[in-house]
């Protein structure tokens, strides 16, 4: 291995700064969980509107999905942090300023609500019509059919695809450093600016992301396949 390569894979800096880096990691996880929960809830709502009976809400759902999925995360985050408060402020007639953490969570939740909405919609549409009709034939209410017959199947069926989305989302949290949210990437940049060694630090960060994602994905996978084995024999 050449000197250069040795430098890239020399992770001693990572150990040396583990305290701040760990703090950053916690922040990353915080941003991730907050925005993931929001995105899931929002995505579910939008998906239900999309398959629902009200044409205007359906149209809004389509619009929401397309804009959310297609907006680059980077621009979305800057926009939410700087432009959105201006607009909202104008409406309520008062100067507004968002805490960067909330801006980040709002932006990520918005972008990924589009992805989740699509995932859920695909799942809802994949539930055989007959299952719904069976519920109707027994006189079950529309809400009960949705919550008791449709969604449990959707959630379990869409688990693999959602895993993909969770992974993207977790990785996407690394851009919140753009608005100075002190996540793992932010800390890495800070250390790198002081040590002037970006490569080993970024490499270490990538490994951290990898290990976390790998463990989480494996756990989800084994959970979902156990469930599928039970229900789909």
């Amino acid at each position, binding site marked *: 291995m050449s000197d250069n390569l040795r430098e890239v894979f020399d992770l001693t800096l990572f150990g040396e700064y583990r305290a701040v880096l760990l703090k950053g990691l916690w922040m990353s996880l915080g941003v991730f969980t907050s925005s993931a929960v929001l995105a899931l809830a929002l995505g579910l709502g939008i998906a239900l509107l999309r398959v629902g009976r009200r044409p205007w809400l359906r149209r809004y759902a389509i619009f929401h999905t397309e804009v959310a999925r297609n907006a680059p995360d980077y621009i979305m985050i800057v926009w939410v942090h700087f432009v959105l408060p201006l607009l909202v402020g104008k409406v309520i007639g008062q100067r507004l300023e968002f805490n960067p953490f909330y801006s980040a969570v709002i932006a990520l939740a918005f972008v990924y609500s589009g992805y989740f909405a699509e995932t859920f919609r695909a799942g809802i549409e994949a539930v055989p*019509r007959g299952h719904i009709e069976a519920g109707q034939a027994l006189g079950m209410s529309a809400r009960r059919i949705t919550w008791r017959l449709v969604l449990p199947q959707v959630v379990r069926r869409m688990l*693999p*695809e959602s895993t993909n989305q969770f992974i993207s989302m977790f*990785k996407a949290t690394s851009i919140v450093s753009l608005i100075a949210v002190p996540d793992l990437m932010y800390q890495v940049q800070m250390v790198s600016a002081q040590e002037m060694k970006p490569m080993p630090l*970024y490499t270490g960060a*990538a490994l951290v992301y*990898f290990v976390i994602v*790998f463990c989480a994905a494996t756990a989800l996978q084994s959970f979902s396949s156990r469930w599928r084995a039970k229900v789909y024999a």
Partner: protein
Amino acid sequence: MNNWQRMVWDQRELFLQGFSVTLQVCGVAFVCALAGGLLLALLRVRVALLRPLVIFLIEFFRATPVLVQLLWVNYVWPELFGWPNTFFTAACVALALQSSGYLAETFRGALEAIPRGQFEAAGSLGLSRTRTFLRIVLPQMLLDAAPSIGNQFTVIVKSSALVSVIAVPDLMFESQKLVNRWYEPIEILTATAAIYIGFIFLMSWGLARVAGALRRRFGLAMNN
């Protein structure tokens, strides 16, 4: 409003120039990602010997931030493998790697969803394995995976906004340059976002139309 004229409309050539680079990077990366994803999926399903390695690779590509992939491919790979030697190639490769990880899983899902009977019908008629794959399996896989493939395209385009860290002058780079010229990010970034959103929307809409048309043609559209 004057700002829009001066910073966006008058700069359309720069925007266009950056957009054309984005287009090239995404195009090449997308094609490579499709091929790579397919290859990984097949290796994973068919070659038991390589399975652990392939799973590791897939997860590795999926799970590492694309920024780091860009840095690695551009700065570390040349030393390890003597390739790639231009920034542009490195950008394409890095983007393709990430998406091929995702697509490998998508393709695996699609492959496993093809009814056994489809293979058996081909086998019972004596079709060769290659022919069976190309003619019977692949078209059905692509059709089945079309929505996820569309999704992946949006991911590539969005990730491509990072390629300028390895000096590829894409749309994002040009728009940053304009931001640095006037320190007026709002109009410029909004315009940039509009271009990205419009482009991605057009592409995924087109793809969905094609897939929908095919499904309708095959009479598969109105199942449940």
